[in-house]
């Protein structure tokens, strides 16, 4: 008997492979590691942010502050670069900030018993506003490390290669899988998302775990911001707007239930790749408008949400309300 847990993931991978094959049939040279490598490189920051969002969503919450965090980290990187900081040093500082900011949001959510939606909405405003306070214009990052970052790559079989963004993304995926599946903390996340009251009765420390979940989410958003800044070698106060939407969409497409408790981090990566693949396909087509990127993402989202609804109903994974 197939484990119901893997059905959504199977659906995600199937959709990804199918889209990839469709691309291969329509365009020569599409089925290559080169294209794959580019998709990975272009979407690395979204996928990293989505990995963080996966944890938050698995716990039954939501994080809207992702996009603003990416923008804020970017402008700070750029401004610190002008002040003579090494990008790695400013990255370390900003990752710590990300963790702290996320943890603070988690604390407010649990302590004040306010919906995550609202707390992270305030976070969205706060960080985006802070972006503008740091800088109103796009600021270039000129440190030679950016050059090193851009040129470091691991060749893949075929003509393709993994860029450093993609490498960081895969590393953070590995870390995320470890956290989700091999630590007590990871198990607690699933428990809280599955049934918060039961988890409380089973002895899960709700507050500490919630703070850690959002801290982790903040870390991944900040990391996404660092990667985005290095990738574009600049900081722009509007950078990352609505990335939180793409991240949430990637999580859902990756087979994680927005109601929490069910899902796999690895699925999110495929979800993010599907989004990247769609835009690549549509850009390849040339005559299609970017409108189709949004519409097809929405349609896929609809399909997956209905599929989840159906799965939840048929497997009785959660009691109906």
């Amino acid at each position, binding site marked *: 008997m197939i484990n119901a847990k893997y059905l959504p993931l199977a659906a995600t991978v199937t959709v990804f492979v199918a889209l990839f094959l469709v691309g291969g049939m329509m365009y020569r040279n599409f089925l290559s590691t080169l294209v794959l490598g580019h998709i990975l490189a272009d979407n690395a920051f979204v996928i990293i942010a989505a990995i963080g969002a996966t944890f938050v969503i698995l716990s039954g919450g*939501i994080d809207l502050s992702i996009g603003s965090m990416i923008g804020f980290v970017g402008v700070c990187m750029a401004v610190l670069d002008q002040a003579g900081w090494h990008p790695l040093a400013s990255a370390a500082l900003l990752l710590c900030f990300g963790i702290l900011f996320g943890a603070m949001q988690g604390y*407010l959510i*649990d*302590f*004040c*018993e*306010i*919906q995550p*939606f*609202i*707390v992270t*909405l*305030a*976070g*969205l*405003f*706060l960080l*985006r*506003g*802070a*972006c*503008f*306070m740091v800088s*109103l214009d796009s600021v270039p990052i000129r440190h030679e490390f950016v050059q090193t970052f851009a040129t470091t790559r691991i060749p893949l079989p075929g003509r393709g290669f993994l860029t450093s963004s993609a490498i960081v993304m895969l590393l953070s995926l590995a870390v995320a899988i470890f956290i989700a599946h091999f630590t007590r903390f990871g198990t607690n996340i699933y428990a809280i998302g599955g049934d918060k009251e039961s988890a409380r009765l089973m002895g899960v420390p709700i*507050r500490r775990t919630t703070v850690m979940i959002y801290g982790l989410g903040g870390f991944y958003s900040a990391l996404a911001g660092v990667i985005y800044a290095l990738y574009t070698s600049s900081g722009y*106060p509007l950078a990352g*707007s609505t990335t939180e*939407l793409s991240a*949430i*969409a990637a999580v*859902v497409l990756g087979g994680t239930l*927005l*109601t929490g408790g069910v899902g796999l981090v690895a699925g999110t990566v495929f979800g993010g790749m599907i989004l990247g693949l769609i835009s690549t396909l549509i850009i390849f087509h040339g005559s299609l*408008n*970017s*409108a*189709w*990127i*949004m*519409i097809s*993402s*929405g*349609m896929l*989202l*609809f399909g997956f*949400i*209905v599929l989840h*609804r159906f799965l939840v109903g048929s497997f009785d994974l959660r009691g109906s309300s």
Partner: protein
Amino acid sequence: MMAEQTEPRPVAMRPRMKLHRAVWPLLALAAILIVSGIVSPGFYNIRIVEGRLFGNLIDIVYRATPTALVALGMAVVIGTKGIDLSVGSTIAITGAVIAWRIQMGDPHLVVLMMALGAATLCGIWNGFLVAGLGIQPIIATLILMVSGRGIGLLINLLYGGTNPSFESALLQGLSTGHLMSIPTRLFLAAAIFLALWLIIRRTALGLFIESVGGNAAAANLAGVNARLITFVAYVLCALCAGWAGVIMTADTHTSDPVSVAMYIELDAILAVVIGGGSLAGGRIHLGMTVIGALVIQALTTSILISGLPPEYNLVVKAVVVLFVLLLQSDNARRAITSPFRGRAR
């Protein structure tokens, strides 16, 4: 005729409770206006230029109108314990439909009807997902939120999409025109507010929505058709967003689905929360929601006028949200009143 003031009429019948609820948002509004008056002299000046009123106070009301309209619809949906993230997309679609049909040469009144019809369709879609399929509101409306702006772009493409700008005496008259020195959109907004208030408070719909939002199981046992009521709420919300879309699109003379009404869903939700609405549902405060929208706009305008860089706007807004949230939270209040007993359950 006089300019409609957005007084909290619907709650005026419950004197004791109204006082309690209305005090904080009104105080906030007053505080913002007073501080602005001190910081920037001449803040309250209102003069007539070329037959229309000018001044900061007018400006606040004028600019708050679209957000207030969206927030009114949002208040209804939140009353059912739901949320609608797709209002921005609805506005984008409305705008695209307007530009498209005007290019096609339809009579402008018909165009207006079609635009509102498109918005209604958006509401029907959301209502179907939430009430019909039973999908969580935040997830269900995310679908249209993600794809709606794309649909708008697609509609632009129907006529080439190169020049989505248009001229329309009727629509621009509704949006940026003025009547007896007063902006027409205020009359329009007042009329919509009145219509919505009549639907909510002069029929039993408001009671039903509040009962569904407060306790859906009890409402069902008391004979309320909870699904139908929820469905209607999403349609009403989309219709309000549609009107906001008409005003915003006519204001800019162009359909810009990608960036029109960005983050308006967040502002609208914020307006509802500032107006004392709880996301847990169960109450609709139409009047207070309008006050909430005014608070947000007054804040924005005041920051602009005061000479502070406009980028402070978002930060201040965030601080206001956090402050309101902390005030609403029992735990936080307890922690403030007795710092050593802050342990939550």
